[in-house]
């Protein structure tokens, strides 16, 4: 076996040194009746070339040459090549959690930079070293709010990513945390009247996403006011990190729970991604996840260590802030490199391109179908309502190797024939025009003559 650095003679010599005659004696502690006397029924040992072939074949079955308008919590942005060259260095790739600070300064300093940039981008005072992903970060942020306030119930916007809501429901079930859902208004934002009515003296926090699942930017300041005057905290979930280049961050929030996948992390069929929790300094001791802090060594030289570890499971055990052990260090490093590459100016310009492509696409779609929630600002996603079921339109598009917007019937049946479309800097005008063409054709074929859509998008 090519990964094992021993010759048969080495093994013999080692057994002899231990004083054993055969390898079987090493496994004597396992009761004989349970020992496996046969080979595992798994694929035979394969050559490296065969393994590569196997996965190339799977990639071909996986729409590798399709273009797509999918977003909905997982975004296709360009990944600068230096991300992979740098994270492939064995010193990053094959290191463990930096518990031994003297020989882990590379990882520690890069996490410190990551935490700093996350603070700059979110407008928060402290950020952790990363969480599993955006969905679990949102659930953990809510549990953090419960600990901070001593209250237990939670008000969640229906415009929060539906799968994030599902994850939160799973986490909340056995914590005795009742969830109530605030609906979405005609403007695509959380219905603030309904939100206010749902908040009680027992509400620990309000959880909204901005830009929300429909791509609409919430009025975070107004929501914060409603929550905070009732003694509840505001948790803001951000699924599209690139928005932070041009959209005002949720500075009024108490906790920000983010998914940073957009920053240089491959789509990878849904993971691994990179969650982040950021908050105010005064709340840091209730924050879950690893934290890196700056300090000095014996000679007074600057260095970095994992700190405030008493919050964590390996010390506090059943009374820890969370059971989380790993962070997503390597993914956080991708994010860190991406943020460094684009930096102060690039992130803004990148976000602006996303905005421009989306404005163009929404304008074009509005000429033929109905673009919902057009009164509110949006980032890079929008909802198109068609006369025909979007799944049918998408099936036609798929024939041209284009994946259309995400049909929403499963998540939001009340929106009818609606789909969520996403444009990034990777979306070309010709892709948009082709997709719009198919929607236009569908509308022409279904809609009675003389009925024209309102072209409000074009005017914007």
């Amino acid at each position, binding site marked *: 076996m090519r990964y094992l650095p021993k010759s048969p003679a080495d093994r013999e010599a080692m057994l002899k040194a231990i004083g054993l005659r055969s390898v079987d004696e090493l496994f004597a502690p396992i009761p004989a009746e349970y020992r496996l006397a046969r080979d595992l029924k798994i694929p035979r040992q394969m050559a490296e070339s065969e393994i590569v072939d196997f996965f190339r074949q799977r990639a071909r079955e996986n729409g590798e040459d399709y273009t797509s308008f999918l977003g909905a919590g997982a975004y296709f942005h360009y990944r600068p090549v230096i991300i992979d060259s740098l994270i492939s260095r064995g010193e990053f*790739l094959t290191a463990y959690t930096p518990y031994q600070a003297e020989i882990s300064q590379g990882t520690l300093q890069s996490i410190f930079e990551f935490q700093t940039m996350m603070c700059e981008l979110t407008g928060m005072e402290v950020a952790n070293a990363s969480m599993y992903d955006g969905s*679990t970060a949102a659930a953990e942020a809510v549990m953090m709010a419960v600990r901070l306030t001593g209250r237990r119930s939670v008000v969640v916007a229906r415009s929060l990513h539906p799968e994030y809501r599902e994850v939160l429901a799973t986490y909340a079930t056995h914590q005795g945390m009742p969830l109530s859902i605030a609906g979405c208004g005609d403007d695509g934002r959380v219905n603030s009247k309904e939100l206010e009515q749902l908040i009680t003296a027992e509400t620990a926090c309000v959880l909204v996403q901005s830009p929300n699942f429909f791509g609409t930017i919430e009025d975070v300041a107004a929501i914060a006011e409603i929550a905070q005057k009732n003694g509840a905290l505001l948790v803001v979930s951000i699924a599209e990190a690139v928005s932070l280049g041009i959209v005002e961050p949720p500075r009024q929030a108490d906790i920000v729970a983010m998914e940073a996948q957009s920053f240089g992390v491959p789509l990878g069929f849904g*993971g691994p991604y990179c969650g982040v929790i950021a908050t105010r300094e005064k709340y840091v001791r209730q924050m879950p996840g690893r934290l890196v802090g700056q300090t000095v060594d014996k000679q007074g030289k600057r260095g970095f260590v994992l700190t405030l570890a008493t919050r964590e499971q390996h010390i506090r055990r059943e009374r820890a802030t969370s059971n989380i052990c790993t962070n997503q260090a390597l993914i956080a490093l991708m994010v860190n490199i991406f943020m460094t590459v684009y930096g102060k100016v690039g992130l803004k310009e990148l976000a602006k391109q996303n905005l421009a492509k989306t404005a163009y696409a929404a304008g074009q779609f509005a000429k033929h179908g109905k673009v919902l929630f057009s009164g509110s600002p949006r980032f890079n996603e929008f909802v198109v309502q068609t006369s025909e079921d979007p799944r049918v339109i998408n099936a036609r598009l798929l024939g041209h190797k284009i994946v259309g917007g995400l049909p929403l019937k499963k998540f939001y049946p009340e929106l009818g024939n609606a789909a969520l479309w996403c444009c990034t800097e990777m979306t070309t005008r010709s892709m948009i025009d082709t997709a719009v063409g198919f929607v236009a054709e569908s509308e022409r074929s279904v809609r009675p003559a003389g009925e024209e859509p309102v072209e409000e998008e074009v005017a914007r």
Partner: protein
Amino acid sequence: MRHTTPKATRHVNQNEGLIFEKSSAGKAAWKLPPLDVPEIDVSKQLGSSQRKDLGNMPEVSEIEIIRHFTRLSTWNYAIDLGMYPLGSCTMKYNPRVNEAVARVEGIANAHPYQPEKISQGALRIIKTLSECLIEITGMDAITLQPAAGAHGEMTGLLMVRAYHQSKGNARKKILIPDSAHGTNPATAAMVNYAVENLKSDSRGMVDIVSLEAQMNEDVAALMLTNPNTLGVFEQDIHKIADILHANGGLLYMDGANMNALVGKVRPGDFGVDVMHLNLHKTFSTPHGGGGPGSGPVAIKKSLEPFLPAPVLVTKSDGTLGFEYNRPQSVGRVRAFFGNFGMFVRALAYIQANGPDGLRQTTEDAVLNANYIRKGVEGTFDLPYATPSMHEVVFSDKLQAKKSVRTMDIAKRLIDYGFHPYTTAFPLIVPGALMIEPTESESKEELDLFVEAMKSIAAEVEEDPQTVLDAPHSTRISRLDETAAARKPVLRWKPAV
């Protein structure tokens, strides 16, 4: 530093500030293509939601970024540099073909919501890995959704709760041996179970008499790590399973140490009802400085209705797809389908090994641990003489007489070119030295390690101060962790 070894040493003479300290306005490492749609007026689009300033985000060029991170990387120890004997962490070789296939276009760029029709490749990978893991564990079904080991524990206990609930009584508590990982009690608390400690006997195994006394109808499950954190196989495993099952309880196995068992024995065969695996331990996916992990949960048939949704199924037309309608499911534990990129790597590892390679891997891991045990025994105190599987736990009892503790010895090991072992865990061994070499070490590397341990023990006798002041060969010396915790500085700020 007095001692030199023939091992490679790290690049420690580079100075490198924080990236913010290299930033200046106008430098850039990015270039966007020209816009092929009309320019927009941002303030018109966003109104008051427009962001005006990105604060202290850096502005640097590409070569500076390459040098910055390359220099930082040289301050890290890594498996690629040498032995990383962290007990319980399983720092084995991370094969490069894993990384290559995870980056194949079509795998790396697949969107989780793309139609199933054009996701058959990804679904086939999930299916194949699932089948392999079910066979390796001897269980009946599996979910790959949990993002890490602790997340798998939570998922497993949610299923335990749902199982008992379906029988009319969710029960109240989880039994956890005193040698367990900290995640076990933390997880039980998250699923709203009380934790009851179970003490170990003189062999370092579960005390059967205590278990019998503590077992009753309030106990939902026992969370057992096997081999346990002492590296000891629970020889009474069948009695343990019987005691639990006789009282309607379930046996949860923390699979952190599954690398001692693969191909030799299957948890499903010795009475385990639910268990999680750590793909980043047993199945070679990289630790990457602390993640990502992946924590599949394998279960027996009786728990299948409770699997997190969605569940992968083969449809009537032979294609693969997800089933979302699972009325008894514990729900979703993560958006999308889990850390898919880790599935790709784990499957590539299983394929590279095959049944014979996986068995040999396990045998070598256990052989290596016992070789170290033999080499170091006598020099360091061995609190439990019970046979070792894949790791061995010593204590600093002999060195403590000179006021040298396990952490000091660990730090000195750095000067000899090794990463320290795990210190101060498991909690049942005061001053523990927990050593897990894995199968990835050659006899030469193991001999160097044994020699280093003996040399440090001699230093403790002759010149303890050298050990107490270690490490001597690193860019920085021991850091002031107290100052870091008292007045936390968790981000960089520009000088005022």
